[in-house]
């Protein structure tokens, strides 16, 4: 527990506190009055209002579209289900920059809809909302569908024998059981969309701005640290509240539900209604999840002189001599992979230790106070998901710049920041598995003569190994896609893929646009490849708690 705590204190709490302090301190004096001034600013109020509004709308829309999908995945058996399950998961691990690019290619200027019908959505809020649904569809399907598949269908049958019709049985029995999972998924989606950065940065234009985007603008464009600090604190408080609510619903979800093996509850659809639901879900997935990615790929090949790998060629040939690139795109790919691997390693060590500590402490926590301490630690690990990555990135720059910890020029700065985002995924993936290891297995091994080390080696490791691989894949994917912090701390001559994409999109010209699409496609293929490799490992639906 000590190492993860130290890691968080040094690389998370310290930079965040430092930057907030720098914003609010003036000549050694706290200027808390700044908070009031900033909050009263109509522009800030507008941003706040939009942040909350779009997050709520995105969450509602995601639930509306994804809940039928959750049902289909939980209860129906159909050919290609495993593949589809993996496909649905791909958007979740895609870098926000790629998603932004994909939707730009679909609904933006010169995008597919623009070409076909002259429809452009990139100036409306719909592009942002749809991109958020795209992103978070899997969160709902996995969280709700995972539980739904494990609910015993005989609970509904019991209600029907007692005189409840099909719908009444669902409403009275299944819905209450699913309630906490739906709430947890909704809160997660709300959290992700509330802190949305890359998507809004690319699709929002000058009109729409979330808190996170505003923090970035205030810090990077206007160098107005005090305002950024206040905004960070507001976002921090909101995230803290959301996480507390989430922890509470998760705890309620653990109430005595009787779960069965999900493989036994799924059957082939029967009757016209069920087939219609299945096809409807497939259509939604095709239009909403697959099409943006397909269009992205299509645009990356749509060179001026007809379809061809022209943009890829220019990417490959662009050396340092090319004025549009400070560095060759191929180097950006290499940077990304190297940073991602290092970040994965850090996240695995820190997250693995944290998960192990949580498992041990929970088991031995006898007093309520100790239990609360453990839950507090649990929640702390989730914080990096919600705290402004921009703040973390900027905080890194201003705190880790003096001895004994001068990391500013160190190669390790980027992986450290990326690992922060990876740790929550590692913990969430490993915790359920570690907790599920039956203590009696260890006892049985011990009675048979295994030393404690051998017990861990023979009992825990084989069970946890899959989870470690899955956690590594998740950490790798989110590290690859990390944008908010990396954009600050990656040295100009060592950009990662998302940073390079954002730079290209920031410039005018068809070549830059096409190259951004091509680079996004490469990034997508790498992320999707990592994920699909994971799906082969993952036996069933133990995706943790996302």
């Amino acid at each position, binding site marked *: 527990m000590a190492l993860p705590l130290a890691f968080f204190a040094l690389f998370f709490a310290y930079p965040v506190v430092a930057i907030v302090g720098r914003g609010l301190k003036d000549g050694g004096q706290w200027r808390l009055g700044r908070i009031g001034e900033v909050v009263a600013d109509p522009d800030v109020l507008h941003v706040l209002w939009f942040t909350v509004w779009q997050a709520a709308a995105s969450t509602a829309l995601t639930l509306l579209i994804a809940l039928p999908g959750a049902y289909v995945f939980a209860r129906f058996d159909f050919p290609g289900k495993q593949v589809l399950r993996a496909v649905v998961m791909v958007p979740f691990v895609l870098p926000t920059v790629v998603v932004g690019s994909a939707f730009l290619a679909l609904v933006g200027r010169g995008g597919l809809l623009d070409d076909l019908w002259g429809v452009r959505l990139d100036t409306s809020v719909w592009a942002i909302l749809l991109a958020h649904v795209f992103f978070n569809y899997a969160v709902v399907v996995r969280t709700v569908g995972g539980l739904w598949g494990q609910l*015993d269908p005989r609970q509904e049958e019991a*209600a*029907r024998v007692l*005189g409840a*019709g099909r719908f009444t049985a669902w409403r*009275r029995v299944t819905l209450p*059981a699913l309630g906490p999972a739906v709430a947890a998924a909704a809160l997660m989606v709300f959290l992700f969309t509330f802190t949305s950065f890359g998507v809004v940065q690319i699709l929002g234009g000058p009109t729409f701005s979330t808190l996170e985007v505003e923090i970035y603008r205030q810090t990077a464009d206007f160098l107005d640290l005090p305002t950024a600090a206040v905004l960070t604190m507001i976002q921090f408080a909101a995230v803290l509240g959301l996480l507390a609510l989430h922890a509470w619903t998760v705890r309620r979800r653990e*109430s005595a*539900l009787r779960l069965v093996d999900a493989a036994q509850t799924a059957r082939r659809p029967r009757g016209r209604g069920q087939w219609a639901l299945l096809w409807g879900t497939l259509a939604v997935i095709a239009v909403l999840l697959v099409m943006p990615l397909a269009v992205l790929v299509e645009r990356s090949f749509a060179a001026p002189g007809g379809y061809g790998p022209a943009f890829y060629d220019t990417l490959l040939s662009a050396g340092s001599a090319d004025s549009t690139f400070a560095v060759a795109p191929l180097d950006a790919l290499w940077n990304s992979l190297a940073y991602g691997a290092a970040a994965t390693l850090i996240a695995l060590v820190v997250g693995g230790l944290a998960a192990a500590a949580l498992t041990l402490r929970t088991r031995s926590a006898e007093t309520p106070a100790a239990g609360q301490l453990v839950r507090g630690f649990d929640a702390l690990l989730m914080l990096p998901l919600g705290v402004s990555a921009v703040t973390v990135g900027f905080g890194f720059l201003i705190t880790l710049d003096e001895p004994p910890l001068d990391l500013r020029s160190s190669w390790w700065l980027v992986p450290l920041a990326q690992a922060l985002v990876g740790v929550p995924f590692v913990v969430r993936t490993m915790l359920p598995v570690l907790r599920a290891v039956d203590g009696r297995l260890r006892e049985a091994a011990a009675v048979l003569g295994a030393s404690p080390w051998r017990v861990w080696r023979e009992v825990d490791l084989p069970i946890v190994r899959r989870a470690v691989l899955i956690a590594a894949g998740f950490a790798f994917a989110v590290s690859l896609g990390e944008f908010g912090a990396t954009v600050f701390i990656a040295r100009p001559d060592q950009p990662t893929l998302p940073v390079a994409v954002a730079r290209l999109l920031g410039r005018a010209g068809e070549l830059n646009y096409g190259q951004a699409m091509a680079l996004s496609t490469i990034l997508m293929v790498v992320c999707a490849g990592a994920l699909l490799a994971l799906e082969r490992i993952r036996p069933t639906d133990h995706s943790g708690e996302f």
Partner: protein
Amino acid sequence: MTAQADTTAREMLRLGGVTVRFGTSEGQPALDAVDLDVAPHEIVCVLGPSGSGKSTLLRVVAGLQQADAGRVLLAGRDQSQVPTHRRGVGLMFQDHQLFPQRDVAGNVAFGLRMRGSSRAEQERTVAELLELVGLPGAQRRAVASLSGGEQQRVALARALAPRPRLLMLDEPLGQLDRGLRERLVVELRRLFRELGTTVLAVTHDQGEAFALADRVVVMQNGRIAQTGTPLEVWQRPATEFVARFLGFDNVVAATVQGEAAVTPWGKVPVPEGTADGPCRLLVRPAGVRLTPAPEGLPCTVTARTFRGTHVALLLQPTAGPRLEAACALRDAPETGERVGIAFASEDVVVLDAAPE
């Protein structure tokens, strides 16, 4: 037609040729042309090993499983177009399936609420039923806080609350320990008698079936192997399968000639009126009598097990397969002793050729 009209008036439940296939249409059906009648106020227990189609039978009657062929009649009415919640039957699930998010009263009152009973009536019925099943005042308790036996009682109360015309029980006492089970069987039988409930139960436990039922139906691979009162089934198992399922293993091939049958154990007397010819023969353990060593069929005692009221002996005869015998404790020989045996005709049963 007149014959059918006559029976519809008498039978609460009538199954005619009910067949259920899972998966492909080939292979063994889960239920194979099952015919079964249950009269009002009758307690019928379906007995069979796991996989014999017992639970599927209940699910078909409840409308939770579509039959591929055959008819289900409840009080004379065909149920094929009637959805589960309008059939007016009760089903107690094997693992109870209490709703974990509701308390005891919420579970018991569920069926009444579905029927739109008034709140006052719900409360009264819940209180009555909890009293009846021996859990007075348990209304507000959480389901998770109940012991196995208590959960079973609540599940029973919940199934009884809407006054189903037919109550079905799936392994009603399966998860309980032996002592509790034996006590509850007696309680259940008394309760169903008092309430005049028609009951169709399934179990794999013969003790449970014999103690609970007016009539026992033994199932094998989706077919009915034998129907009869507990005493009939116990005394005269119809097939080798039934005999072995009831725990009788002294079954051999035999040829009946007059008053005795020729078996690998030598001549065994058979009951009067047995037809001549080849058959399978069962000798119940009580029908294997010990004699002083020189007389009868010489055997070696290979094992003895104390069973409370008697001692079960495993004997290896000089000729033929091993035999099980039952004898009183004071007469029981030690393991390894040599004894002789004779057979008593009243415990010899001639079995139908088993359709295996």
